[in-house]
């Protein structure tokens, strides 16, 4: 290995650690007890430090109230930190400091049950899958028209679509609210799904792909009496599997992570998607650091798992978004 390589790898490893440290700390904090966090045990290891006092072969956990030189006033607790007695005077020599490695996995169930996270997950899954299916259907139909067919106004529509892609989301947020309110869709699943079932980027991506399919292949099918819709289903789509996967992944991640739209367009707790639910939870449990970390962990877990299984495809999908220039 030459020196350049050594330096390169050193920098990459160092910066890689910085990139993932928030996640590592998130997981290690999520299994700590809140008491430890509050005591300022901020490090990465879920180690609990406490003092004990043994009397009549029974071990008590203690917290110090007042130190008086060779003896102290303490509170006595049992294993579960339930108070047994208060202001007991004991000799300092009988106090033992203990360190214990303990994973508080119950944080996950506590956080999950504190607010209906199960419901939030189901809502998010329902919305995300609906959006992805919708995006693929409308996208492949429109892309098929743009790529294969000739019709009046084709370029007009294409440029109209592309120019709509340039509009940032916050710009149409307010009028969309006015519109959905008028339709009576505020606080419904439609509001989360319908406006998103067409994605211009997907249309663009699929159109590029459909254009690469040999014209002769389609013409031959048409002459054999194959209808256009059938040709789309039987020839065009099977030849475009990887681009469809790209579009699906893109749509799914985008929908799963979207926050501002569902925050504004829904109100009732039953309709909260995961991100909105998590946001409310972070306000309700703002001091419960460990629980917040557990909730964050299980909220991002599905996407991390998806990412680990389809890294190549996902990274290629995101990279392809930059190639249009």
């Amino acid at each position, binding site marked *: 290995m030459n020196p350049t*390589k050594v330096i390169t790898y050193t920098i990459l490893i160092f910066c890689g650690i910085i990139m993932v440290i928030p996640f590592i700390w998130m997981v290690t904090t999520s299994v700590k007890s809140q008491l430890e966090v509050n005591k300022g045990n*901020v490090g990465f290891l879920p180690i609990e430090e406490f003092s004990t006092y043994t009397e009549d072969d029974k071990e008590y956990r203690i917290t110090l109230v007042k130190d008086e030189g060779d003896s102290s006033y303490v509170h006595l607790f049992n294993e579960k930190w339930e108070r047994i007695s208060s202001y007991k005077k004991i000799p300092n020599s009988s106090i033992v400091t203990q360190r214990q490695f303990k994973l508080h996995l119950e944080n996950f169930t506590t956080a999950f049950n504190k607010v209906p996270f199960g419901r939030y997950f189901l809502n998010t899954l329902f919305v995300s899958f609906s959006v992805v299916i919708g995006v693929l259907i409308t996208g492949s139909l*429109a892309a098929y028209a743009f790529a294969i067919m000739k019709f009046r106004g084709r370029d007009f529509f294409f440029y109209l679509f592309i120019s709509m892609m340039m509009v*940032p989301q916050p710009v149409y*947020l307010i009028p969309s609210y*006015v519109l959905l309110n008028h339709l009576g869709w505020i606080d419904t699943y439609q509001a989360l799904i319908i406006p998103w079932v067409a994605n211009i980027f997907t249309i663009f991506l699929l159109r590029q792909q459909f254009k690469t399919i040999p014209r002769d292949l389609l013409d031959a099918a048409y002459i054999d009496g194959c209808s256009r819709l059938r040709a789309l289903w039987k020839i065009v789509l099977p030849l475009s599997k990887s681009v469809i996967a790209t579009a699906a992944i893109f749509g799914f991640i985008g929908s799963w992570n979207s926050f501002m739209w569902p925050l504004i367009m829904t109100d009732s707790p039953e309709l909260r998607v995961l991100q909105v639910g*998590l946001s409310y939870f972070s306000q309700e449990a703002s001091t419960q650091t460990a629980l917040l970390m557990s909730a964050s962990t299980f909220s*991002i877990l599905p996407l991390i798992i998806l990412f680990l299984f389809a890294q190549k495809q996902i990274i290629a999908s995101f990279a392809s978004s930059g190639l249009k*220039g």
Partner: protein
Amino acid sequence: MKKKKFNFGPYLYLLPAAIIVIVFRLVPIVLSFIVSFFDWTITGPGEFIGLSNYSKLIYDKEFWQSLLNTFYLVIFVVPISLVLSLFFATLLNGIKKLKSFFRSIYFIPTVTSMVAISIVWKIIFNQQTGLANYFLEKIGFDPLAWLAESRGIFQLLFANFGIDLPSYLGGPSQALFCIIIVTIWKGLGYNTIIYLAGLQNIPNVYYEAADIDGAGKIKQFFKITWPLISPTTFYVLMMTTIVTFQVFSQIYLMTGPPVGGPLGTTKVIVYFLFDKGFGESNDLSYASAIALVLFAIILTLTLLQKRLEKKVHY
């Protein structure tokens, strides 16, 4: 041959997508102009007020403050992210082993949700129980207030040398700087893979020729890589600028209470819009005007960058 009739077919294929795009993109944009000209609240349209929302904006200190904060965000995030991502992409492009491993590591923040990430970073920046102060303490520094600090970073920096900087030269508040860090961290992986794709498109022959001519690696970077990567640079520049102008979630979740604090130093334009439209005042028409101003700014910057790109392009 059949006689040529008007063919409805293609339009039927276009219809589903066109309905959605027109109803939920085009109509809202037209509507937002209309809404901004009326006294429009949650109950519906009131009287026509013309341009008074826009003139109100000019005198709204909160608006200028949030615009300034947004500019700080963009001015710090865009160049730092650009340089770092090109740096990482160049390093990754030079190695074979573990390349996809590192690429994935850098990319994880991009696929995770801003909400969860903001919650985690807010706790990292917590003064008492946060990781940031824990590290500072380990390397022998005083703890910082982070998200609770409203003074500007330059002001704090110069104060160390006994120089009292006026507040207008203070720069973004330390709290806003925390947001800057998180925003860079979140977008770095995306920009890196875009750059990596760009670097892989540069034909190797250029570097081989430069090697023969005896040009060093650094010279090669500035004479070959930098000019040839410029289309990618413009794309990254444009995308990062547009995305940074729209920052919302990290402000909403990390700052405050009240959101945008301390002292309004982290209030950005999209949060300002959100607060006006859906906060106490519920002034949808004012919020619409803000949204359109934001749109105008983004559009202007995009067109400027496009123009600049044409001039620089080889």
